[in-house]
């Protein structure tokens, strides 16, 4: 890739524990959670009253009134109110996109320090009224004469008042994310056993990370929650095996995806402090990692030829190629666990010669993902997945893992880490971080 003026560094991060939908954070808004997360970050790095160059954040499930979500959160936080902010949205890759945007500004010298963040509440989701009711109300509002008003009022029906609940269905296919993944799961022949074993490992690895205090400087408790609510340290293959499938029940292949090997709907927020090396040096901060490069790819899922959540299998090879790297160069690989099968199918696709030839135009497979380097502290299956907050969670986790590792075990020089986060709309963003 062309040389960039300088690299942004990850100074540190903060998130609140992720809650299950309708639980500890059910009365917390995106703005509440984002504000608390910014405050925790400010306290960790002494940023109270400091003016930062920019704060980018977003939410996937967003109320119309929250058009200025990030700026509102900054104003409610301990940061200097002169800190500007803007909102970002790219489905589940929103957090990563926010971090990337701030990193790029820093790389270009347009900013010295900023925050990339994200928040999402599945509990405090916007309720939408029916399209007919909405149109009638707008007409009524525009009506000038009493007769006109009466006409529109007469059109209102009790049935119009039933709210339309938000869902995560793809507008072009009408299929939910789980049903889309079920198609991919069947296509790649990912078994129930493999998914359950994978999910179990995610819980065990996240629990072990908590036990060793890994999150002590990455997390600030919120509303009495001190750990991710989805985490089940004591789950087992038996317990996971006893769950009924919820997706892919109408396919010819056996249904394998359960609530246990799918990521639960969650509430939470995360934030990453990014800066230039100069800014970090001047403050005496020891950065965790630097942001090397990132790619977003998209798949043609509406045609049915590609899996909705398989964008990672396109983004990763593109990113590796332009940086002259292979999968084996990375000490840690973080693939967002939308579903256990998403990770397993992505790993399978990367290792598949046919996939490489037919989809990527390569002569051979991208490579093998070493399971010992994959999601070593667990991921979304155990932590939960408040959509826009996942990017920040993963960047923080990987940056700290890289800082702990220092020199790579697999190549000359500092350890490298790879991230891939799939998103609705058939997209995925991949990013490379390097240990400082």
């Amino acid at each position: 890739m062309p040389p960039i003026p300088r690299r942004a560094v990850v100074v540190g991060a903060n998130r609140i524990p992720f809650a299950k939908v309708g639980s500890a954070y059910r009365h917390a808004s995106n703005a509440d959670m984002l504000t608390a997360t910014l405050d925790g970050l400010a306290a960790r790095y002494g940023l109270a009253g400091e003016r930062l160059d920019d704060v980018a954040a977003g939410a996937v499930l967003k109320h119309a009134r929250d058009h200025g979500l990030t700026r509102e959160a900054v104003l409610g936080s301990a940061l200097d109110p002169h800190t500007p902010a803007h909102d970002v949205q790219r489905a589940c890759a929103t957090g990563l996109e926010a971090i990337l945007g701030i990193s790029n500004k820093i790389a270009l010298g347009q900013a010295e320090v900023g925050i990339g963040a994200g928040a999402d509440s599945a509990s405090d989701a916007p309720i939408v009224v029916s399209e007919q009711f909405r149109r009638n109300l707008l007409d009524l509002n525009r009506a000038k004469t009493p007769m006109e008003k009466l006409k529109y009022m007469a059109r209102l029906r009790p049935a119009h008042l039933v709210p339309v609940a938000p869902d995560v269905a793809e507008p072009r296919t009408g299929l939910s994310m789980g049903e889309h993944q079920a198609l991919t799961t069947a296509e790649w022949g990912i078994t129930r056993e493999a998914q359950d074993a994978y999910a179990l490992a995610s819980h065990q690895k996240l629990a072990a990370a908590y036990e060793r205090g890994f999150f002590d400087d990455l997390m600030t408790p919120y509303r009495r929650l001190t750990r991710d609510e989805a985490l089940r340290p004591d789950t087992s293959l038996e317990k996971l095996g006893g769950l009924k499938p919820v997706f892919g029940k109408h396919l010819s292949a056996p249904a394998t995806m359960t609530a246990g090997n799918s990521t639960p709907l969650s509430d939470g927020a995360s934030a990453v402090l990014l800066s230039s090396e100069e800014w970090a040096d001047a403050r005496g901060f020891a950065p965790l990692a630097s942001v090397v490069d990132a790619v977003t790819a998209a798949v043609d899922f509406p045609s049915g030829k590609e899996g909705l959540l398989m964008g990672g299998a396109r983004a990763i090879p593109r990113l590796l190629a332009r940086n002259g790297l292979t999968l084996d160069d990375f000490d840690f690989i973080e693939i967002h666990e939308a579903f256990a099968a998403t990770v397993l199918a992505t790993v399978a696709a990367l290792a598949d010669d046919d996939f490489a030839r037919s989809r990527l135009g390569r002569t051979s497979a991208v490579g093998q993902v070493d399971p010992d380097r994959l999601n070593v502290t667990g991921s979304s299956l155990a932590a939960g997945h408040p959509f826009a907050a996942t990017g920040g969670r993963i960047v923080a986790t990987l940056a700290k893992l890289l800082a702990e590792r220092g020199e790579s075990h697999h190549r000359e020089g500092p350890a490298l880490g790879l991230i891939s986060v799939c998103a609705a709309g058939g997209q995925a963003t991949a990013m490379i971080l390097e240990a400082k």
Partner: protein
Amino acid sequence: MSDSYIDLVNSPLGATLAKKLGLPKPVRLRRHAPNQPLTTGPVLILSDDASRLDADAIAAALLPWDLDVRRDTHLPEEQRWGAVVVVLTGITHPGDLVTPVLALGTTLRRLARSGRVVTVSRAAGADLDPAEAAARQGVDGFLRSLAKELRAGATGNGVVLGDGVDATAPSALGALRFLLSAKSAFVDGQFLHVSGPGADNPSWERPLEGKVAVVTGAARGIGVEIARTLARDGARVVGVDVPASGDSLATVMNEVRGTALQLDVTAPDAAERIARHAQERHGGLDIVVHNAGILRDKLLANMKPEQWTDLLAVNIEAPLRMNETFVELAHEGALGRSPRLIGLASTSGIAGNRGQTNYGAAKAGMIGMTRALAPVLAEVGGTANAVAPGFIETEMTARIPFATREVARRLNSLQQGGLPVDVAEAIAFLASPAAGGINGEVLRVCGQNWVGQ
């Protein structure tokens, strides 16, 4: 936790009732506020003849503090004494007390609300002439008794000078100023022993300017006020608390423009992590306040093993282990030019408290540790001191059953519980350059609790 009884007895009807029934009549104590005068009225300096030179020197030293310093007991009708300072540094015989003490007696009815009586005397030692020792020790019993006679929020305390410490040494004046000020609102019947000269504060408004302080247990209760008070005095504050209290800690640290470090003080590397954080975020560390503590009240006969071991681990073993590192750092010069280690003791560690054998052991342990550390810190120009709070109004004491709490509150000369800020003020004072000559002391902040010294 508000003390509604104070409001009641300070209302017109309540005051009449309290008087008729002979009930305690506590007043709202005067507390520090920015730009307030040091005392509420003129300051009278009394002395015996042999102490006159020191009294003159102290009077001169007090003038730059914007005080109305008087040497004569005459006071216009409409005025009240803000404070009376009794200088007794030259006494050699108990008979020398008579003139200044009786003169003081004539002023007491004219002492202002939250007025101050402060004695300045010298330490009684076994190497002295018996009469001189009797005179000096006599000040102790006199002052403690007088403090119990004072009313309306007035306190009686003393500064005791060690051998060779000048009456106007920075620490002697620093101690005197603290005891005269509203910052010592809940310090009563106590002596501050000054064993060295100390250093001048850079300013009285921000004595801790340029210092970095760490406060353990900073997420709630007394720790919050300690963080606020140290920050008010100019220090950069690192707040430490267990990860589970991280949200309250973040709020407090953002308020005081400090930094939060989520850390369990019982971790083996706690001190190293604190020192590293302070170095990285603030470029050094000067003041350590061991405030983190837990309660596991139980009669010994009913105590489970972990109720003993958990409490001891947090309240005394953790500070002990951390201090090993801090002492090393102090000797390497990495704890500033005048390192300060300050521990939170408790009157429970002095007088004992039913149901608190574990707490009492830990808090008395804190006192033992402080005294043993003092000479070690003195080698590098630092100090180790402890503050022993009595009944303080916190979330913790608010959970004590009503009747028990009401009684506990009144069992001191000021007939009320102290506030967390009272403890914090004592700590901020001990952390200041002017307290550099005070070492190995246990300063009680208890309103002269009826038990213990």
